[in-house]
């Protein structure tokens, strides 16, 4: 995905009509459950990441990914 900034720039336009939308009742939808092997899941994850590389997160979210524990090997 390459267009995050372009996506964000649409925010202003959409703010004005979001509150006016009316959505119907979609209750009753059933979940799709899929089961894959670990190998398939890893491959799936790789493909997802290549199609949708993560955006830079705010600093406090990045900080959450850090491990404060020191491992002495």
């Amino acid at each position, binding site marked *: 995905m390459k*267009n995050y900034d372009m996506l964000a720039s649409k*925010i202003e336009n959409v703010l004005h*009509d979001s*509150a006016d939308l009316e959505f*119907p009742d*979609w*209750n009753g939808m059933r979940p799709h459950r899929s089961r894959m092997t670990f190998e398939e899941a890893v491959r*799936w*994850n790789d493909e997802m990441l290549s199609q949708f590389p993560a955006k830079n997160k705010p600093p406090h979210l990045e900080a959450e990914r850090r491990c404060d524990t020191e491992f002495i090997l």
Partner: protein
Amino acid sequence: MAKCPIREIAIKASRDQIPLLLIGGYAVLAHGYVRATDDLDLIASHGQRERWSKLLVGFGMTIKNDAATFLQFDPPDKSSMAVDLMFVSEEVFVKLEQNAVETEIEGVRVRVVALLHLIALKCHAFEHSKSIRRLKDIDDLIQLILINKLNLNDPELRATIVKHGSLETYEKLRHACVED
């Protein structure tokens, strides 16, 4: 592994001049929150119901769940992904489509609902769903707000969340999205 049929569906929909608009997990991905998804969610107007149904059945999909406001399709085999179609009025669809953003997946241009419309849809789902997937919806909301640096103090964003969710949901999001 379930392969997303979006490329083939997008090409066929384009040829048949059926507007394709992504919502759900792929829209969440397109707006910056990387997470797994195991189905393809599309939104369409009620008037496009028969055309969409015919298109998906043409890919070997079978209807799993048929209701006035949605159609759920099972894939032809385990190697393909399930598709959910959710219907709205023509008026709402036009608004969603007018503000949709275009992006590229697997070399094909597809349209995705705008970020704020996705947030409205997620608030609606969170508020009205009784299933455990509400947890996924609230997590999507929190991550989309943080990653896209949305300002929850913006009165119009607040109005959207309160309208499609509730004041309680808005307060929960404010609490969860507080910057340290």
